[in-house]
């Protein structure tokens, strides 16, 4: 018997004014998947992410979380569904007026009602998990790009969400840090059963961590491939193979 998929996207279209970014997107993300959204620059990956997490209303289609339609749900229902999501934005999007510890603590304090001492322990643990132990009192402006990204991940997983949506996890990270992040993602999937949607064009990440994917094409404004990235590499659409081999195939 199949469990209800974590995320189902049905015939989703997104647009800015009259300009259609992507249309007819159709895919399913199951529990424990690391689902990779691939595509070249400007193909609409981030726009898709914004439609998934409730920041930008799509012009058509639906996004279902465990069978519940997000965009047709009432406000409170949407809030409840969003609470099961964690998002890591491209630039980290840390709250600049708060320290790292406060950044991670805010969602926990907001939703769990735990006493401050317990919150602090959780915060310290999350920061240690992303390799930022001891940086609790730094402000985001004092961090390097890679540290911001890792701190953003610590905040995204503050509430142990079912689904973590990550926009460009490894862009701007050195290869070793990027690999550590990939390992962390896989470990979280294995240990906590977290489902990941990862928007990326980092080939090493795509092929290492992804077990399902779609490829968004910027010419036809729709998805031209779906499935395991390794399969896509071996016998996928020529454009996808071209992408996954950095233009090595023609």
């Amino acid at each position, binding site marked *: 018997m199949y469990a209800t998929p974590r995320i189902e996207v049905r015939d989703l279209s997104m647009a*800015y004014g009259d300009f259609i970014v992507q249309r007819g997107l159709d895919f399913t993300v199951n529990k424990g998947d690391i689902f990779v959204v691939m595509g070249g620059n400007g193909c609409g990956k981030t726009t898709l992410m914004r439609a998934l997490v409730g*920041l930008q209303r799509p012009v058509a289609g639906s996004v279902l979380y465990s069978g519940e339609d997000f965009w047709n749900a009432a406000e409170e229902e949407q809030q409840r569904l969003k609470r099961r999501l964690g998002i890591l*934005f491209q630039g980290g*999007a840390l*709250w*600049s*007026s708060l320290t790292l510890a406060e950044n991670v603590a*805010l969602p926990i304090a*907001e939703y769990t009602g735990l006493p401050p001492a317990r919150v602090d322990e959780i915060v310290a643990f999350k920061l240690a998990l992303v390799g930022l132990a001891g940086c609790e009192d730094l402000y985001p402006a004092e961090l390097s790009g890679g540290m911001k990204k890792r701190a953003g991940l610590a*905040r995204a997983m503050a509430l142990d969400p079912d689904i973590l949506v990550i926009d460009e996890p490894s862009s701007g990270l050195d290869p070793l840090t990027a690999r550590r992040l990939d390992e962390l993602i896989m470990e979280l999937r294995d240990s906590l059963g977290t489902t990941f949607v990862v928007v990326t064009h980092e080939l090493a990440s795509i092929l290492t961590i992804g077990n399902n994917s779609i490829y968004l094409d910027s010419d036809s404004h729709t998805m031209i491939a779906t499935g395991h990235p390794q399969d896509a590499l071996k016998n996928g659409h020529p454009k996808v193979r071209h992408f996954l081999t950095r233009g090595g195939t023609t």
Partner: protein
Amino acid sequence: MRGAAAWQLDLRPGDADSSGTLFISLGGRWRIDQGLPAPETLNDSLDASVRRVRFEAEQLADWDSGLLSFVAGIGRSCTERGIAIDDSGLPPGARRLLAMAAAVPEQRLAGRPVGPQDPFAQVGEATLEFFRGAPQMLAFLGEVVMSLLRLISGRARFRTRDLWLEIEEVGPRALPIVSVISFLVGLILAYLGADQLMLVGAQIFIADLVAIGMVREVGALMTGIIIAGRTGAAFAAQLGTMQVNEEIDAYNVLGISAIDFLVLPRILALMLMVPLLTLYSGFIGMLAGLLVSVTIFDIGVFEYYTETLRALEFKQFAVGLSKGTVYGAMIAFAGCLRGMQCGRSAEAVGHAATSAVVTAILLITIAASIMTIVYYQLGI
């Protein structure tokens, strides 16, 4: 001979039997710091008799993108006229770069639409834009009111530290500039009044004029305009930068109301501090009036003091404080509105800050007019 320091360009039509080939030979230094020719200068030579262009570069000493853009420009002219190009005479590096630049065709992306250039059309566009903004403004007002109601019912959440930080920023730190402006405005009021009151020998009423003027109207107005420029713009820039950094999105995604968390403390801070600054401004204005009256117009300190006390009734303070509170709310509203509407670029943040000040001053002026008329009708 100008030496190898400058570029040389020679056009040589081929022989009659060489099927209309134009030889373009390039010599010397073709670098962008050498003052290069425009490719269009060759347009006259590319007439109907030319069917093929061939570049020659035996005399070429040195080149950079100056040469490349010149050759590419000629290439475009030739393509338009259906003339074949033979660049095999160019250095291999230059040919490879030219081929690379030509490899990806020009892209037509949905860029910013070009607006109408006719001034009347621009005025029309701007007017339409203003009215299109009205629903957004009302929606934001609605959210702010909802947030205030949540605050009253004890369900709005923000950090009190933020409120205190804003209060410090708006209050004590604004004192110097408010002092200077209020003192000078009080001075101007005193002189203005003295000029007229001297005619009827009633200089003592300078005290009434300055006291009522400053406490009731001018103190609030001056404070409002100073705070709009100082704090309203800062609010827009802060929230705008947060918008650029996706910080506001991060609040929304977590289901934490950015209005409660960011806008509410700012509005409260201004609603608390602008009336206090208004009082302070009135006091400083009266001091300036006193100074002018005593030193220039020979009015006694005690005389001025008692006349001021006589003139000031509680209702004058009530009017001034109510105006200060309303202006404070307007400034914070305008600043936060423009900040939250900010686009995702550095330019947009600057625009948000400017727009916040303009909106705040507009709102203040409208509110001032309405309140003055209403208070007059009510006889306050």
